[in-house]
């Protein structure tokens, strides 16, 4: 058989609104997927990549229909199949791995029953053989106790385990094609690196063909042979992975690559202006034209055809742009990483006298000791956050880094006065911050502001942007309401929003715009310390850097101090001065961001750095720590003992490690002295970001 496994021909999918308007979600998409290759499908939220991937299984969202074109798998048009044939297709030929494993597993069925049902049905295995096959794959996916796992329910597994189960379920059927829809999004970086690694090894071994959907260029760079970039329902560029990353021809691809924060870069990435169109928005002939630096009148009037940049077999490079030749030239003349100006370094790193915010031995616990447990003298569960000592200097950006559950947000809320610490001191200048927010003075409340992760939730849906921005003004400044107008206009301008946004409701804004309103609200108070809780993690890449830009811009102008929480080390590199690494609510390392570039690191920092994916093909992550779920901090010894790649032995399990301070002021909590750490760490292969 010489025909390709999958052929998508001029596929258009969409829905019709109640008013009868036609809204295409996919426009005229054509793709070919050869056997044994992996196609990465990238694009931002709403670009139609999920719709496209599901169409390979002949699945349409309710209300959607095929306007035109067809999808062929193994030479058959999948949308023309009857029920039984469709079940055969899904059961045997095309396997699917969803994004959200916790939602995709049926909560009322045991793992074993769910994993084996389609095997017995479509592969003709008896129950024992099916169990055997699934157990084997569970083992390959390094799930603990695969036999016992069959009897478990989904909720008894951690997120990473659920994702592995879902992947193993799809692999067990040995389909010809595996469709993966963001299978690692939502996992911690280390877990993601492990899952990707396993996935690649196994699929490679089976010679499986994959369609890998992701918003994440870094992930796509690791797994794909071929990459298709989608924008507003169209495939705008398609090329072999190395070619796409080294020589992008579409302005959108170029912009996406430039907007990525990279762990190798200490400067802010360059954002793409504007935001992607919603399906119903009116658009130019080329959907990207409004955001494009290369756009001309032609882009407004003439739908760009798919041009072929390179035609040699297996190296096919296509792009949907009128001006792709200009893009290539631009690429040649301007250095690859032409970015915005680097941040002014803050020269107060070790100056204790300038400490704006000081945390001393802070502990926060959510567990309330029950009367019964106290009477029985049961040991209390370890606190969520413990023994955290930090000083944040005036005017700097301190990044607080850690995986989910590391207590970053808890710590931030303690500073904000939303959750009282159970021990230790928090001071702001010489003012006490251990008291809850409602007992703080108006002045303290004003100078400390917080920006939340999800702007959808942090803005009241019933208030206009103007009303939202008025609240801090009314609260902190006894000013005449007549003056609000001017002030609000100014605030909007600071976050680069036009004045007419004042009358809009949050539901009328895009994600990036909402987050800017949230930033404007924080800055309306004219604060000194702004607490940022994962402020860009809910945003698309192309928008993320614009928000980061607004933040640094405000800092340069107003000299505010940021306590910046994130799980993304590349973002840390781009905007922070210093970094503090948290594991299970315990600090592991505090130091200047520049010190991330070279050893020594705390073993946990080293693990995190190793797991960071680079947006370049052929640069796999380093897997250091064992990927075992570690639900609660240990009662004794080092908090990282269970996963540590540099574990020394009993001492790590028994004794609390000491703080070591290096000559450059970096603090590391480890039994191994920084000098020894450095020796061991440099002896090994270079890390992800030390590559170039």
């Amino acid at each position, binding site marked *: 058989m010489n025909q390709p496994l999958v052929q998508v021909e001029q596929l258009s999918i969409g*829905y019709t*609104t*109640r*008013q009868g*308007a036609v*809204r295409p*979600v996919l426009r005229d998409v054509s793709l070919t997927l050869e056997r044994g290759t992996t196609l990465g499908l990238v694009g931002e*939220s*709403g*670009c*139609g*990549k*999920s*719709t496209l991937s599901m169409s390979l299984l002949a699945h349409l*969202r309710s*209300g*959607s229909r095929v306007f035109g074109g067809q999808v062929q798998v193994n030479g058959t048009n999948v949308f023309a199949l009857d029920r039984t044939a469709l079940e055969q297709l899904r059961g045997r030929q095309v396997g699917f791995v969803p994004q959200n494993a916790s939602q995709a597993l049926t909560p009322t069925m045991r793992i074993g029953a769910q994993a084996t049902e389609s095997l017995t049905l479509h592969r003709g295995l008896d129950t024992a053989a099916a169990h055997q096959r699934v157990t084997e794959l569970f083992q390959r996916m390094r799930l603990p106790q695969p036999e016992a796992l069959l009897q478990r329910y989904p909720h008894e597994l951690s997120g990473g385990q659920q994702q592995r189960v879902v992947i193993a379920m799809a692999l067990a059927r040995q389909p010809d094609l595996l469709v993966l*829809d*963001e299978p690692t999004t939502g996992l911690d970086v280390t877990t993601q690196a492990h899952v990707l690694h396993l996935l690649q090894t196994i699929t490679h071994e089976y010679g499986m063909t994959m369609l890998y*959907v992701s*918003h994440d260029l870094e992930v796509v760079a690791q797994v794909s042979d071929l990459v298709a970039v989608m924008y507003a329902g169209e495939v705008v560029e398609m090329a072999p992975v190395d070619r796409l990353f080294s020589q992008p021809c579409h302005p959108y691809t170029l912009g996406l690559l430039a907007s990525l924060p990279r762990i190798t870069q200490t400067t802010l990435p360059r954002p793409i202006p504007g935001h992607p169109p*919603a*399906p*119903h928005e009116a658009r130019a002939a080329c959907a990207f034209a409004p955001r494009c630096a290369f756009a001309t009148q032609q882009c407004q009037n003439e739908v760009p055809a798919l041009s072929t940049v390179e035609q040699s077999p297996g190296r096919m490079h296509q792009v949907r742009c009128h001006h792709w030749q200009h893009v290539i030239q631009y690429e040649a003349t301007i250095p690859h990483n032409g970015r915005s100006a680097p941040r002014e370094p803050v020269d107060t790193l070790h100056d204790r006298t300038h400490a704006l915010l000081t945390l001393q031995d802070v502990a926060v616990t959510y567990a309330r000791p029950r009367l019964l447990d106290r009477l029985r003298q049961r040991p209390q569960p370890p606190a969520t956050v413990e023994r955290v000592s930090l000083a944040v200097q005036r005017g700097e950006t301190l990044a607080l880094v850690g995986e989910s559950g590391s207590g970053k947000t808890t710590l931030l809320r303690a500073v*904000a*006065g*939303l959750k009282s610490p159970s021990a230790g001191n928090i001071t702001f200048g010489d003012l006490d911050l251990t008291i809850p*927010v*409602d007992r*703080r003075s*108006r002045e303290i*409340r004003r100078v400390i*502001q*917080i920006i*939340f*992760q*999800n702007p959808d*939730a*942090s*803005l*009241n*849906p*019933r*208030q206009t942007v103007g009303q939202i921005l008025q*609240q*801090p003004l009314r*609260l902190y400044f006894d000013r005449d309401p007549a003056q609000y107008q001017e002030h609000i206009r100014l605030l909007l301008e600071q976050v680069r929003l036009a004045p007419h946004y004042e009358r809009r*409701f949050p*539901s*009328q804004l895009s994600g990036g715009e909402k987050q800017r309103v*949230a930033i404007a*609200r924080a800055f309306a*108070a004219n604060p000194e310390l702004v607490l940022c809780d994962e402020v860009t993690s809910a945003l698309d890449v192309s928008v993320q850097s614009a928000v980061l830009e607004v933040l640094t811009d405000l800092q340069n102008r107003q000299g505010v101090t940021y306590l910046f929480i994130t799980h993304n080390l590349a973002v840390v590199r781009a905007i922070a001065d210093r970094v503090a690494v948290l594991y299970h609510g315990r600090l592991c390392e505090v130091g200047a961001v520049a010190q991330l570039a070279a050893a020594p690191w705390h073993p946990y920092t080293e693990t995190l750095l190793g797991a960071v994916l680079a947006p370049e093909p052929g640069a796999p992550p380093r897997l250091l720590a064992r990927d075992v779920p570690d639900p609660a901090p240990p009662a004794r010894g080092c908090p990282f003992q269970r996963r540590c790649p540099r574990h020394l032995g009993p001492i790590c399990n028994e004794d609390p490690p000491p703080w070591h301070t290096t000559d450059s002021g970096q603090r590391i909590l480890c039994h191994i002295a920084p000098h020894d750490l450095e020796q061991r760490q440099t002896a090994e292969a270079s890390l992800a970001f030390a590559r170039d």
Partner: protein
Amino acid sequence: MAAIPTTDGHHAAPNVLVTIWQNLRCSPSGSIGLLIVAAHLILAVISPWIVPHDPTAFDSQAILQAPSATYLFGTDHLGRDVFSRTLMGGQIALMVTMISIVISVAWGGLLGILLGLMGGWLDEAIMRLVDAIRAIPEMLFLLLIAGIVGTENGILILALGFLYGVEVIRIARSATLSVVAQDFVLAARARGESRRTIVLRELLPNVFDVLLVEGALRWSYMLLVFSALSFLGFGVTPPTPDWGVMIAQNRTTFGIAPWATFFPSCD
């Protein structure tokens, strides 16, 4: 990804009334509830103007007449026009229901929001009390009040308003809890807004429509309860026309004059 919005509400301003309307439209029982409320209100307002006969007038010449051009729904055992009585029969029931709903939503909503905000042992204690009151069969509760205290409208309104307010507490409390957990309330707390501002500006606008929907949904239910009370002889006192009373009175003559019972049923 690629979320398909079902409505094109992206650029419509989320006016409170619009949201309520959308919420109601989303739940079929909500839209039916609203339809019934509207129909009842129209009926109540226009009936006094369109009734062809005095609903309380006897006509000894026309006892138990079958539906005809003069008596659209026929007459009952006292010769009263069933059509007129049917039209007017809702007046008291609708008034009682309306006032009771306003009372129950007002006090139940207020208490529910407060409890949701405060939490703690008081919340816990009051919710247990609410559980206990809900365990008492409502019809018996109402009958007890009506039987012992009296069947005046004022008393029934208070009893109904109290009883359903207890239901509203739960609804309002859980709606509040879901709003309080949101980041924008947390943001207001972090800003140091007063409790009053948080309730008035952040919570109420988001809980209010839940309460209104609840009120509309309760409407026909309460009407049923009230007519059942009348049916049992504890609601509206004869000879005032009322749907429940009419059915009860005409049951005995059902065999010979089904119209007298049937038409009032189809309010």
